[in-house]
């Protein structure tokens, strides 16, 4: 459409609207504002403002001869350098653990999602039951389930005994209190967050595309790589984010399944700075560093793999 024609159309459009209609549209806009206002106010008050408070707290100064937990407002940027130098290896470890757990969860969750979304089409009852089985464990508390894993993988448990008997595990080896146990725990606990978005996008997969691909002599592997996987990308994208972000900040798995040497994660450090060491600025600075690192990683990820369906 040429520019003058466009203009003419715009003029026509304005002419077509009666004053009542214009008023109605304005009212509609105001109505929308009233709908979102309470929720957004809440988010501003209890999400945005706290983040700002956290930021200012990270710059607090400990006055001379202060008591434990006594800090005054200030501009102490030194806290950032201090906690970064001390804890960057823990931060790096948190991201590596979260990354491995995310990849493992993706590998496990994809067949689950495919089974429920594609294979069980036309069997709504069985499909429903499997989906419920995914959510119901939330009600038995993930702390209790993680604790159960600790006991299942314990040195005197039958799994470790069997592994030792067939010499997969050395006689003095153990599964708990290792990085392996922590990563397994992370993978296990965030599996539903990976599976559900993949399920949602596979549910819309048109199986005729798979047949068409087969008719065109594509191997099963080719069909998977060229048809199934691209179609499920929005779900994979959402699932990996919903797994990686909470896994990187988690401290329950590391606290229950880890040890004090080579498994501590950044969440544990933040928690203990807050509650045991009573170092509010240090804890706040670490929280902020974690948040910024995750946002940077997520933005890079969205740039590289992002789809229009999300964000």
């Amino acid at each position, binding site marked *: 459409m040429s520019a003058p024609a466009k203009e003419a159309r715009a003029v026509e459009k304005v002419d077509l609207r009666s004053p009542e209609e214009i008023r109605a549209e304005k009212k*509609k806009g105001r109505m*929308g*504002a009233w*709908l*979102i206002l*309470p*929720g*957004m106010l*809440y*988010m*501003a008050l*209890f*999400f945005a403002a*706290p983040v700002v408070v*956290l930021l200012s707290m990270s710059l607090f100064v400990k006055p001379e001869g202060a008591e434990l937990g006594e800090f005054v407002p200030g501009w102490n940027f030194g806290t950032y350098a201090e906690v970064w130098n001390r804890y960057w290896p823990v931060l790096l470890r948190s991201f590596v653990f979260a990354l491995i757990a995310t990849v493992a969860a993706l590998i*496990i969750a994809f*067949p689950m999602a495919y*089974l429920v979304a594609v*294979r069980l089409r036309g069997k709504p*009852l069985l499909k*429903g*039951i499997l989906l*419920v089985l995914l*959510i*119901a*464990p*939330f*009600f*038995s*508390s993930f*702390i*209790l*389930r993680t*604790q*159960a*894993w600790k*006991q*299942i993988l314990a040195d005197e448990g039958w799994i470790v005994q069997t592994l030792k008997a067939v010499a997969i595990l050395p006689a003095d080896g153990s599964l708990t209190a290792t990085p392996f146990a922590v990563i397994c725990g992370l993978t*296990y606990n965030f*599996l539903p967050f990976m599976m559900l978005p993949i399920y949602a996008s596979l549910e819309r997969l048109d199986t005729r595309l*798979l047949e068409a691909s087969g008719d065109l002599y594509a191997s*099963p*592997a080719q*069909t*998977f790589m060229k048809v*199934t996987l691209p179609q499920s990308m929005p779900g994979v994208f959402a699932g990996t984010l*919903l797994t990686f*972000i909470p896994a*990187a*900040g988690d*401290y*329950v798995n590391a606290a229950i399944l880890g040890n004090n040497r080579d498994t501590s994660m950044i*969440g544990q450090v*933040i*928690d203990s700075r*807050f509650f045991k060491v009573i170092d*509010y600025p240090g804890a*706040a600075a670490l929280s902020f560093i*974690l948040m910024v690192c*995750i946002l940077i990683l997520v933005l890079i990820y969205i740039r590289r793999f992002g789809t229009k369906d999300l964000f």
Partner: protein
Amino acid sequence: MYNTKLGKWFIPVVGGLAFVYLLVPIVYIFVFSFNDGGKSNLQWRSFTLDNWKNPCGAPGACESLVNSLSVGAVATIIATVLGTAVAIGLVRYKFRFRSTADLLIILPLATPEVVLGASLLAQFLNLGWDLGYWTVIIAHVMFCMSFVIVTVRARVAGLDDRLEEAAADLYASPMQRFWKITFPMLIPGIVAAALLSFAMSFDDFIITNFNSGTFSTFPKFVYVAAARGIPAQANVIGSAMFIIALLVVIIGQVISYRRKKALAARG
């Protein structure tokens, strides 16, 4: 993969195994709820029904469960009402600051729980509020609302506008149009969002731990107890909640399945 021999057994076997993996700890928790394990419940000793007969036997266990249910219900109701309004407002109406609103919804989802918990704690310390029931509710509403908005918004965006237009042509007022046409079509999405909210609130530990003070929820009770040994009553409560959740949703599904079948038969 759809029609090959390999694909035929590979997906059900691997997918099935993954579901088994998901349920292993639940089975463990259930079995050990019958253990006469004394205080720590680490080793299997002998079978007993005592724990099930007396689920409140461990001090603080039932109290924390009641707290969790109460927080979950209140937080879910507030988050669902506020979140649904936001979802409708965002899809249906155009206004300035939309991208700011989007950012306020997405950012909490991209922020790890420790940071959400720590920043709220900083805010409460700053305001001088006492930590307890209400600070936990405030925290839970905050993280549940983002999930509600995202879930319901997808549903609102998928609605067919023509139905509302048809209602308008039949002289329905805007209020009637909303309550008789739009809202009923949103109900499945709203229910799903509310269930998700309740599950997330019930199972939350990290944010709760930062903002609860001495107030105890079920996950917090288990975490604190873990230091001395978790009493078997915690296993009883965990198993019972799992079974109740399973039954409630399955019964709901069977009812809606039957209703759909009946409707299909009539149509």
